[in-house]
């Protein structure tokens, strides 16, 4: 499956079904992240329920602390 993530077309493996899987796939650690899925902002508790499909547009913004 291919997803449009932060403006880049990226291939994800077949074990990625939900937004939570997308997050696990792209981050090694457990990030604090805000997700927009096809233009809709998701509440954090919906990340494991929200199913992704080929061609979906996803924006991921991770909160970091450095400065």
């Amino acid at each position: 499956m291919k997803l449009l993530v932060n403006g880049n077309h990226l291939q994800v493996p077949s074990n990625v079904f939900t937004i939570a899987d997308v997050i696990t796939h792209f981050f090694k650690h457990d990030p604090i992240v805000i997700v927009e899925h096809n233009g809709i902002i998701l509440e954090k508790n919906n990340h494991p329920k929200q199913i992704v499909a080929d061609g979906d547009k996803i924006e991921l913004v991770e909160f970091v602390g450095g400065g």
Partner: protein
Amino acid sequence: MNDRYSRQILFSPIGQEGQEKLAEKHVLMIGAGALGTGNAEILVRSGVGKITIVDRDYVEWSNLQRQQLYTESDANNRMPKVIAAKSRLEEINQDVQIEAKIIDVTPLEMGQLIDGVDLIIDATDNFDIRLIINDISQKYRIPWIYGAVVASYGISYTILPNETPCLHCLLQQVPMGGMTCDTAGVISPVVQMVVAHQSAEALKILTDNQEALRKRLISFDLWTNQQASIDVSTFKNTSCLSCGEAPTYPHLSYESQTKTAVLCGRDTVQIRPTSAGKRDLQTIAARLSNTGKVEQNSFLLSFTSEPHRLVMFHDGRVLVHGTSDVTEAKSLYYRYFG
């Protein structure tokens, strides 16, 4: 009268009127590292009235790659950052009033620093202090501009009391640390990109051009060439304890502060973090492995970067060995554990 500000006045959204407004404004800069020096230089050159710069650290060689106000002699002399910054900024523009404070900011100090301030710029390196800034901003109705960097990644958001969600609304949890510029590194261009976003938003606020504010959470990675921009207005939570209908400003209370204690005669400071919860020592060890010597057993992680050794337990408590200076210990703690 010279034409120092002529190009900025020619820029019509600012103009002569905006320039005069700017000269009457007071900005509080929390942090004088990469983001702090970049933002301060732009605002001082722009002709802001006054800047108060606050930082607890001194200049080190590892700062010079990206912290633009500092020189080799500042690093050799271990100059306090705010003193070195003030002296350089006064060379740049003597009309701007620069106040330098060498302190480790707590809610008590923030309550004093905030007097007369029009805008707070976040140039800090950890979420504990950002949540204090967030509560102070809500309590005194002063906007603040969040900015952060790590590696080639940057993020920024402008928080306006009564209008936008606050940092507490956006995070929905208290972060338990993460990657830092001292563990994952950082490149200078991403600092400049965040500085550009923060200082542009600052100029809009300080010249009363609020309608031009970006109003979106943005992030970018200058190495992987990704960027995101999200309208987060739906995150504003009416029951938020920082910005909701019945705020308690939880991060200003004593209970929520990072607790430190000097362990007498052991040259050690204990730090008890604000965020409760079991730490994943395995992940933290992996993150630190490039930075110094990491040893681990089932109870704790020990990290050595001479002359200091930091020991973290599962509950997040950290012993900083090799110092009895609380400020230095906190500085090391945030540097390595985020």
